[in-house]
């Protein structure tokens, strides 16, 4: 029995056929699975393997290397807070402790109502000019303060899974100094 929808399977086949070698489609295929299921289940990865003519263990070995794939289901929204240097210099710790209090679970945890999974990361997100920064459902949120974090979370809470607010487009001051918050 397939766990992937025909749409996801079609996406994977399209990816497979556009590369000179089918195996190149592993990462995009895993993204398609995670997009549908919210995480990479063994059954989902087995289907990727079948479509790309690989073994399930080959696909699992690739998946486990990359930090953005989830191996278990999480909350409806994902919050990723940067604690690398540029963010730490401008208050990342305050944001982290605020989230911990506000969401009632430590980094890596999921809120009781299943709305949020959040984690801190040492991976610089590429938003140091707008530090402290985080991503909510892959969208950048910058120049954070505890109040701004509250407003962002309130805005996302009711939205469908994975649909964080679209961050406003990069505006320009200097070349691309971050927008004023």
């Amino acid at each position: 029995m397939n766990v992937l929808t025909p749409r996801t399977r079609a996406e994977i086949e399209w990816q497979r056929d556009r590369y000179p070698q089918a195996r190149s489609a592993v990462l995009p295929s895993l993204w398609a699975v995670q997009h549908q299921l919210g995480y990479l289940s063994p059954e989902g990865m087995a289907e990727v393997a079948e479509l790309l003519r690989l073994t399930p263990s080959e696909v699992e070995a690739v998946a486990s290397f990359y930090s953005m794939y989830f191996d278990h289901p999480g909350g409806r929204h994902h919050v990723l807070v940067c604690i690398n240097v540029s963010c730490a210099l401008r208050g990342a710790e305050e944001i982290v402790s605020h989230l911990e209090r506000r969401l009632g679970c430590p980094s890596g945890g999921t809120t009781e109502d299943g709305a949020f999974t959040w984690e801190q990361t040492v991976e610089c997100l590429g938003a140091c000019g707008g530090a402290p920064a985080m991503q909510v459902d892959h969208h950048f949120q910058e120049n954070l303060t505890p109040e701004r974090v509250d407003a962002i979370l309130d805005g996302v809470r009711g939205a469908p899974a994975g649909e964080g607010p679209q961050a406003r487009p990069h505006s320009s001051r200097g070349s691309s100094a971050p927008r004023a918050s």
Partner: protein
Amino acid sequence: MAEYKLLTKDFGMDGIQSLAVYERSGGYEGLRKALGTMTPDELVEEVKTSGIRGRGGAGFPTGLKWSFLPKGVHPRYLCVNADESEPGCFKDRALIDENPHQLIEGTLIAAYAIQAPIAFIYIRGEYHDQRLLLERCVEEARAAGYIGQGILGSDFSCDIIIHGGAGAYICGEETALIDSLEGFRGQPRLKPPFPAVKGLYGKPTVVNNVETLSNLPHIVIRGGAWFASVGAEKSTGTRLFCCSGHINRPGTYEMQLGTPIRELLEDECRGIWKGHSLKAFQPGGGSMQVLLPEHLDLPLEMDAVQKAGSALGAGAMVFMDETTCMVDVSMRLVDFYQHESCGKCAPCREGTYFESDLMHRLEAGVLTPAELSTLTDICDNMNGKCFCPLGDTATWFVMSAYQAFRGEFEEHCGAGGCPVKQRNAQLVSA
């Protein structure tokens, strides 16, 4: 000297992400000129004349890199490195957000120069919205005949595939990027063979950074000799410097190479915030050694910064004021490398673990002086002994900070907490 806007000239222009506005601003004229008036070899020569060096970190001359491809071996591939994950670095994101077609045009020009039928843009997984933007732009450019069969009526055909990563700094290293693009765990390969000889799918491959390629339309339009007249003699052109940390106006600023670092800090970043003073800065991102206020008069020039014991690297400037704890900063960077070590070789896999454990106990104030003295040994066992530069660079910042701020490191031993943070707290409450 103010900013010198070449790549960032159209940043902030309304609708520049659309093909129509980009074309109105002179967009795709570089590609038209290259295809219509230059042979691939002439194009390679023009880029050599420009003197441009790669903007991805290592600073290798771009034209020279292209000329290493073995003659007559096809197909060849171009990989655009948009994995930007160096701590402190966000310029490639700005170049994509603010002028995506400029990157696509540069990509097509490079693909023509090396005669690649496919160019892959490998973009880090976190740049989700940037990936979607590039995909839209590629479709738009394809519909207009800039991508596909017989581009602009020439006999050159090229496709562009946008490939999203999934969270791994090491995939920015060119051979790991190739591994990842082939559908494997992204781990570096032994060099030689270099990608130019045996890269993607075993074929000759060029890997170039987003910023490097975004320069190409300008080099083609205005000429290599003109480009070489901008900037410094051995660091030609401009670079986008990502400025962050304790400054009044963080952001990316495009500067002519050769400008003193002080001008970047004072004129563009508007100085250190809150009336504080500069304690230290990193001129090239998390991988590079710490520099001190006395280094502010160095020019933004690759070789000069290298002589001072650091590097411009990927162009990330992180400024720190006097309240900064250098042990805390070192700990965060070491944690980053420990997290990102790909695990292929023991000195890095084990060494970053030891470094991280030691730095955490030092910052917590529970390390003994004898344990602290092992830091140098740990780093000596890594630097120069790792399979790829990630493991080497995992020691550079912490070792340079240990040298420059030894008293501060030693003060942490047995302090029961971070003495710098305790002092800061007292200042605030006083």
